[in-house]
C-alpha cells in the first residue's frame, strides 16, 4: 500500500518538525543542567508561565503575533532563494514610520490615522529591505551580509533619532511621547485578563493566510518559488528573476515592519529603543520550524511565543537560568529544523514504513 502524496506531505509538515524540535529541547535541557538548574523544573515553569492563567495566554499570543510577522518575513524571501536576516532593522524602521504617522497624523485624523500608520509600518520595513534586494539583483551582493549590516545601521540611526530628535521632552529615557489614544490598536483580550493582545493578532493570522494564497495560488508567487528553486529554468521560462527577488524581499520587509503595529501601536503606545530586538532572529527559528509554510509558521510562532512568555517567568523563578536560555533553544531549533532537518528523516520513514523522497 503506497502512501498518498498528501499523507506524505502531512507527515513532512508535522512529524519531522516535531521530532526535530524534540531534539532541540533535549539538548536545551542539557544546557539547563550545565547551568546548575533542574531541566524538568525549568520546563514546568516555562509551561506554567506561558499558559498558566488567561493573562499569560494573552501575552503568549501577543508575542506570537510578532513572531508570525517576522517568520513570514523570513519565509517569503526564502522561497525566492534568499535568507533575509534583516527583520530586526526592517521592523525598527517600520516602527519609525508608524510612530511618525501616529504622532503627526493622529491628533488631526484620530482613528483614521490607524490604517495610515499600518501602511507606514509596512512601507518602512519594505524600504529597508528594498536596498539589499536591489544590491543583490544589480551587484550580486550577498543578502545575508547586507541585511545584517542594515540591522546595525538601523540601530545606529534610530539610536541617534531617539536620543536627539524624537525624545519626549523632560525625560532621560530614549522614548517618544505617548501616541494619541485614538491611534492605539484596540485590545481584544478582555476575556483573557490584562494583556497587550490586540487586533494585530487577527491581522497577522489573516496575512499568513494571504501569504499562502499569494505563494501557491497566484502567478507572482509561482514566479518567486520558481526563481528560488531554479533560477536558470525560471529565466528560460520568461520569468524575471530579478523582479521576483525584489518582490519577495519587499514583501518580507513589509511584514517585518508590521511588528510595530503589534508592539508599538498595540502595546507600548510609544516608540522605544530596541523595541524589535530579538524578534527578527526569532523569525528565522519560526520560519525554519514552520518549514517556510504559513500554517507551520503560525504553529511555530505560537510555540516560541509560549517560550518567550515562559522565559520571563523563568528569570524570576530560577535566576541562574537567564532569559538567554530561550535564545539557546532558538539556535538549536534553527539548527535541527533548518540545517539538520534530514537527520531524522530516514529513521522516521523506516518507522512509518514509507518511502520519503529526498
Amino acid at each position: 500500500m503506497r502512501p498518498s502524496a498528501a499523507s506524505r506531505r502531512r507527515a513532512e509538515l508535522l512529524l519531522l518538525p516535531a521530532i526535530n524540535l524534540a531534539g532541540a529541547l533535549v539538548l536545551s535541557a542539557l544546557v539547563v543542567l550545565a547551568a546548575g538548574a533542574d531541566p524538568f523544573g525549568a520546563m514546568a515553569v516555562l509551561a506554567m508561565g506561558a499558559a498558566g492563567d488567561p493573562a499569560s495566554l494573552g501575552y503568549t499570543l501577543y508575542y506570537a503575533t510578532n513572531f508570525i510577522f517576522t517568520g513570514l518575513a523570513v519565509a517569503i524571501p526564502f522561497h525566492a532563494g534568499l535568507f533575509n536576516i534583516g527583520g530586526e532593522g526592517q521592523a525598527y524602521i517600520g516602527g519609525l514610520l508608524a510612530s511618525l504617522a501616529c504622532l503627526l497624523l493622529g491628533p488631526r485624523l484620530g482613528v483614521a490615522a490607524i490604517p495610515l500608520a499600518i501602511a507606514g509600518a509596512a512601507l518602512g520595513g519594505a524600504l529597508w529591505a528594498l536596498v539589499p534586494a536591489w544590491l543583490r539583483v544589480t551587484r550580486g551582493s550577498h543578502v545575508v551580509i547586507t541585511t545584517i549590516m542594515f540591522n546595525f545601521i538601523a540601530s545606529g540611526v534610530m539610536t541617534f533619532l531617539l536620543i536627539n530628535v524624537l525624545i519626549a521632552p523632560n525625560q532621560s529615557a530614549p522614548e517618544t511621547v505617548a501616541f494619541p489614544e485614538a491611534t492605539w490598536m484596540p485590545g481584544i483580550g478582555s476575556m483573557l485578563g490584562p494583556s497587550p493582545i490586540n487586533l494585530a493578532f487577527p491581522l497577522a493570522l489573516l496575512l499568513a493566510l494571504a501569504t499562502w494564497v499569494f505563494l501557491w495560488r497566484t502567478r507572482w508567487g509561482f514566479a518567486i518559488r520558481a526563481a528560488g528553486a531554479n533560477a536558470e529554468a525560471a529565466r528560460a521560462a520568461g520569468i524575471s528573476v530579478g523582479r521576483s527577488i525584489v518582490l519577495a524581499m519587499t514583501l518580507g520587509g513589509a511584514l517585518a515592519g508590521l511588528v510595530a503595529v503589534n508592539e508599538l501601536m498595540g502595546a507600548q503606545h510609544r516608540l522605544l529603543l530596541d523595541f524589535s530586538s530579538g524578534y527578527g532572529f526569532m523569525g528565522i527559528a519560526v520560519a525554519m520550524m514552520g518549514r517556510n509554510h504559513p500554517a507551520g509558521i503560525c504553529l511555530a510562532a505560537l510555540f516560541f511565543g509560549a517560550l518567550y512568555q515562559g522565559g520571563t517567568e523563568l528569570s524570576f523563578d530560577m535566576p541562574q537560568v537567564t532569559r538567554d536560555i530561550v535564545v539557546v533553544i532558538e539556535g538549536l531549533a534553527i539548527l535541527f529544523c533548518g540545517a539538520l532537518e534530514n537527520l531524522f528523516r530516514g529513521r522516521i520513514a523506516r518507522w512509518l514504513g514509507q518511502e520519503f523522497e529526498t
Partner: protein
Amino acid sequence: MSDPVVELHGIEKRFGAVHANRGISLRLFPGSIHGLIGENGAGKSTLANILYGSLTPDAGTIRVHGRLHRMRRPRDAIAAGIGMVHQHFMLIEPMSVLDNLVLGSEGGPALAKGRAAARATLNRYQWPIDSDLAVERLSVGARQQVELLKALHRGADILILDEPTAVLTPIETQWLFDELRALAHEGKTILLVTHKLREVMELADRATVLRRGSVVAERQVAQTSAAELAELMIGRAPAPPVRRAHPKGPIALEIRDLRVRDPEGVTRLDRVSLDLRAGEVLGVAGVAGNGQSELIKALVGLAAPSSGMIRLHGRDITGASVAERRRHGLGCIAEDRLRDGAIAELSAAENVLLGRQDESDFVRLGFVRRENLNRSVETWVHDYAIRPRRPDQRLTLFSGGNQQKLVVAREIERKPSVLVAGQPTRGVDVGAAELIHRRLLEISAAGTAILLVSADLDEVRLLADRILVICRGRITGEVAPEDVDERRLGLLMAGAAVA
C-alpha cells in the same frame, strides 16, 4: 584466449524504482578493445561507474587480474589499475594542465616531486598540449587528452572511456582511435562505453549489448554488423516516422549576421544567417560545442547578441525579452531540459505552468487555474505515456525520461508558431523518441516552423527538410537529408570545407 583481466559477475544496481543493472556479467581481455553498447538509459554508464568505484553495486563481484576487489571508491579502482575518462570531464578549470595531472598523485606534502613526475608523463606521450595552460583555455579535444593522460599517469592498464566522442570533431575522433589502438597494442585493456555503433564496428574487438539493464548479446565484432547490433540494442527493427512533403508557408524566422560573444569575449556565433519557413523543419547539425547552445540562447532571449538581427514573423525581436518572444509565438525545447526546462521541486502540474504563466488558459486575474493545469497533465500523461500519472506529485518522483517527456510535451502542445528544439530526444528511450519525432512532424505539417538543433545526425536526417552544418560558430554549408556523402558532411562539420 588468455585469461580475462577484468571479470564482472552478476552486477545488480537499483536507484529507487529504476533497475539500472540486472545481473550483468562481463569479461575483458588484455590488449583488446571491448565495446559496451546500448541506448540512453540502458545502464552502460552505471556499469562503468560501478567498475570505477563511483557507485557500489547492490550485488555481484568484480575481479581484476583474478583477485576479488571491493570497489568502494575510485581510490580502490585506481589502486587496481583502472582509469576512467568520464563523459563530463573531471577537470579543475582554473588550474593548469600540469596541476590537473598532479592532483591525486602529488608524491608528498610539497608539489615539486609530483609536478616533475607529471612532466615526465607528458614527455612520454608527446601529445601537443601546453602543460602550463589553464584547462579552461583548452579546446574540448585537448581537454579530453588531459583526461586520458590523467588515467595513464596514474598507471592504469585498464581504461574505461564513457561516450568519448560525444564532443569530438571527426578529426579528433580519428586521433583518439589511433591512440586507443596504440594503447591496446601496448597491452592495455580498453572498455569503450558508447551508443555509436559505427565506432564500435571500427574500433572494438568484442561488443556487449545492453538493453534495459540486462546483457542481451555478446559478439565478436568481426562476426557481426551494425544492423544486427542496432536491432539488438533497440529490441526490434526501428520504425521511423514517415516524413511527407507538404508546402511551406511564408518565412517565420529570419536571422541575419548574428554574432554572439561569451562572457570572456570569445566569439561563439559568427555572423550566422538563416531563414525558416512555416511548416519547415530546418536542421542544424554539428558536433556539440560549436555554437549551437549560443544560437538557441540568442533565439530564446537568454543571451544578447553583440550584433545582428532576429525577426519573428517580420517583427524585430533582437532586443525582446524571453517573455515577449514567447508571447509572439516562439517556443523552445531546451537542450538540457532537466536543468533549464523543469524545476524538480515543483509538482508536475506547476511545471506545466513554467513558461506558460501568462497564458489566459492557465492564469486568470493573477490566480492560477489549477483545474486546467491538471487536465493538461492528465491528457499528456496519456498521450506521451508518462508515468506516474499524478499531476500533484513533485517532479523528482518522475524518472529522468518521464520528466523530459513532460517538458517536451509542454512545449510541443503549446503549438508555437516557431519551435526551437535542442536535442529533443537526448536521454529519452526509443519508444518516446519515436513519439516525439512523430509529434514534431505532425505540428510541422500543421504549420509550425521548427529549428532542430541536434548533434544526432540520424535524428536530423530523419526529420529535416534542409540541413545546415555549423562549425566553430559559422554555418559551413547546407546539405539535403538524402545526401549520404559522409565524407563531405564530415569535412563540413570539421570546418575543413565551406560549401
